[in-house]
């Protein structure tokens, strides 16, 4: 039978050409999806593709700028979140979002109130609400948290709080579940346990799942939708999507990276050993050790959510370390604040550019400038386009131009180590070529660069060596040339 026709007649969710704009940024562009009742749909795509925004729009915490949403044949466009929830939609959040001061059981019981009609009960005692407690305990048992019922939610381990998120969502007795990266930040046995929980969820519930773990998504889903840059790139069964060449390019690159000869290496500039850090209870990086020598370009690859940005942020000092050392030219900076690290010679081109409001291009470049081989003239020679833009406010520039400013301002600090966090994000292929040329030129000048990238082509074109991060650990360490020449090795290393 035609899947389309059958699906539409029993659609649990219909997203109709939904667009969402935030100021100048279009997060979702005419996205359409139809999910049948009881279907399991995985939503995948690179960072910034719009996946969480899609969930926000479906669940009602954001209104679409255009388009319509129907849940169970009912138009919900623009409905506030609580109303959508009452229609039987439950969601988990990417960052565990619980009631930290309450106990585990209380958290779950709060989830049962709406379904049980108890939300406005001002007389009975909450603790003695038998049906709520019963439902709550049942939900806890189903996720394996029954014995932690009286523990304060704030004291749970990261994995346990993901389990609790799930339990709260289940306690709502939803008809539709929106799961946003339920496995994020989990590793080892915890990851397996939660993964199994997800697979065992009741089949009559329609489930939408955002996940970066492609293996898991493939296992879990009936169908997958791939988002990129706010648009639907591909849709189909997991096998179809995996085999789709467009999807492969997004994740693997075109395989056309030129082979570079390796540079003669100088002495070690950066030595990171046993680094571990995370956010709140989540441990994002575990026992990471990397090294960068003077004059090298080292790339950190890995799929999203694997910790690349976290690593660079931790190195710059934006994030405290749980353990480990960071030695720059022999001095351990692990316990120093970011200002000291900046002054010691570390510079960062941050993810998302982060232009400073109210500053012109010239001002931004001059802001942190220090004496050394790099000066304004040389920076403008590297990025001639900025000459015309010198007196414009940096925030009014296009994405590519902002990227140039971000790189230039870091260079003008004359750092010993230049770190770049996903500089290709949001850039057109042409601009990525320009970026590639710029980084190659830096390499030729003898700069030391640590580059975190999703774009495999770019990374392999400029790097000498590559580390691959997976779930917070270094799983591979290869010369770039080797990976560029051997595509299947690359695929294996990236887990694709």
């Amino acid at each position, binding site marked *: 039978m035609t899947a389309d026709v059958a699906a539409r007649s029993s659609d649990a969710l219909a997203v109709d050409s939904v667009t969402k704009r935030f100021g100048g940024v279009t997060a979702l562009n005419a996205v359409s999806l139809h999910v049948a009742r009881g279907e399991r749909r995985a939503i995948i795509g690179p960072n910034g593709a719009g996946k969480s925004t899609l969930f926000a729009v479906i669940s009602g915490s954001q209104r679409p700028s255009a388009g319509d949403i129907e849940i169970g044949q009912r138009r919900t466009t623009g409905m506030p979140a609580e109303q959508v929830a009452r229609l039987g939609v439950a969601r988990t959040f990417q960052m565990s979002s619980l009631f930290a001061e309450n106990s585990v059981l209380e958290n779950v019981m709060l989830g049962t109130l709406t379904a049980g009609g108890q939300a406005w009960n001002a007389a009975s005692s909450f603790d003695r609400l038998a049906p709520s407690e019963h439902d709550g305990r049942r939900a806890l048992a189903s996720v394996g948290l029954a014995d932690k019922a009286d523990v304060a939610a704030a004291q749970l381990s990261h994995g346990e709080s993901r389990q609790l998120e799930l339990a709260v969502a289940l306690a709502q007795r939803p008809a539709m579940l929106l799961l946003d990266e339920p496995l994020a930040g989990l590793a080892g046995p915890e990851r397996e346990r939660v993964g199994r929980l997800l697979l065992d969820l009741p089949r009559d519930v329609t489930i939408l799942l955002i996940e970066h773990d492609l293996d898991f998504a493939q296992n879990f889903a009936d169908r997958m939708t791939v988002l990129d840059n706010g648009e639907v790139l591909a849709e189909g069964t997991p096998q179809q999507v995996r085999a789709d060449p467009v999807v492969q390019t997004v994740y693997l690159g075109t395989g056309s990276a030129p082979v570079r000869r390796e540079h003669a290496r100088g002495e070690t500039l950066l030595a990171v050993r046993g680094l571990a850090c995370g956010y709140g209870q989540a441990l994002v990086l575990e026992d990471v050790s990397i090294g960068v020598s003077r004059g090298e370009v080292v790339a950190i690859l890995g799929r999203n959510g694997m910790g690349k940005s976290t690593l660079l942020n931790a190195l*710059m*000092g*934006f994030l405290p370390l749980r353990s480990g050392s960071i030695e720059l030219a022999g001095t351990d900076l692990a316990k120093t*604040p*970011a*200002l000291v690290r*900046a*002054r010691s010679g570390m*510079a*960062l081109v*941050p993810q998302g550019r*982060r232009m*400073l*409001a*109210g*500053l012109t291009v010239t*001002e931004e470049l*001059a*802001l*942190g400038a*220090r004496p050394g081989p790099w000066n304004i003239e040389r920076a403008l020679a590297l990025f001639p386009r900025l000459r015309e833009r010198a007196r414009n406010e940096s925030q009014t520039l296009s994405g590519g131009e902002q990227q140039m400013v971000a790189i230039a*301002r*870091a260079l003008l*600090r004359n750092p010993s180590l230049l770190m770049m966090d996903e500089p290709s994000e949001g850039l057109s292929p042409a601009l990525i070529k320009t970026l590639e040329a710029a980084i190659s030129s830096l390499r030729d000048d003898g700069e030391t660069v640590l580059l975190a990238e999703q774009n495999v082509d770019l990374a392999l074109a400029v790097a000498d060596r590559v580390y691959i991060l997976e779930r917070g650990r270094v799983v591979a360490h290869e010369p770039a040339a080797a990976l560029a020449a051997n595509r299947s090795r690359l695929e294996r290393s990236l887990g694709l």
Partner: protein
Amino acid sequence: MLYFLLASGFSLIYGVGRIANLAHGTFYMLGAYVGFTVAHVAHSFWLALVAAPLAGAALGWLVERLLLRRLHGRELDQVLLTVGIAFMLGDIIRAIWGADIRSTLPPASLSALVPIFGIQYPAYHLFVIAVGAVVFAAVQFALRSPLGARVRAVSSDPQIAVSLGVPVQTVRSATFAFSVGLAAFGGAIAGPLIALGPGFDLTMMLYALIVVVVGGLGSVAGALVGAIIVAVVDGFGTLQFPQFATFLIFALMVIVLSFRPQGLLGKRG
């Protein structure tokens, strides 16, 4: 104009440090009293204009360094701390200077009347307007400078500013001290125009809040715009509807807060 001097400092502090300094009005009052004393004791109005901001800035720097910094990141607690300081400082000022209404005389050089378009204008009023304009220009000029760029950077994205080597903590302290000094300066200037007595700080604080809310939190130009609007509404109200003048001002504040909390030119919504 007086509102502007007071409000611009408040806006600066909020923009750069995300602190709503509700003791600002009290520093203003301190400046007025210090100005009064110095003018009397040293027989020099001009000296008073120098002493007041210095006193204010010094005290402000102490407060920021010793107290506010400990509450880094706790916005509400910082606001409450400034309220506490306002109350404490208010009573201290009253203890030192007494509760009688004081007034300063403008310096002899500015006591005359100046005819403009046929209306006799007190020279001092013109002086105040001129000073306000100069201060505005100076602050805007300073903000455009490389030093000002650092301030703007801290205001926009402290994390990136740090990574670019900007000493964020120092910038915040300095901005706080400067802004408070500016408030004190405003108070000293205001001396000859107002009746100085206890409770004055709270009244001025409220006006400053309204100006900042209307003009936009975090924007010095907004403070100027807001000050003008508030002064106009207040003046207009007092003339036409004396019964409702104060009401109008606060109603304006409520309307802006309800529908456009970031004010006309502000940035933090």
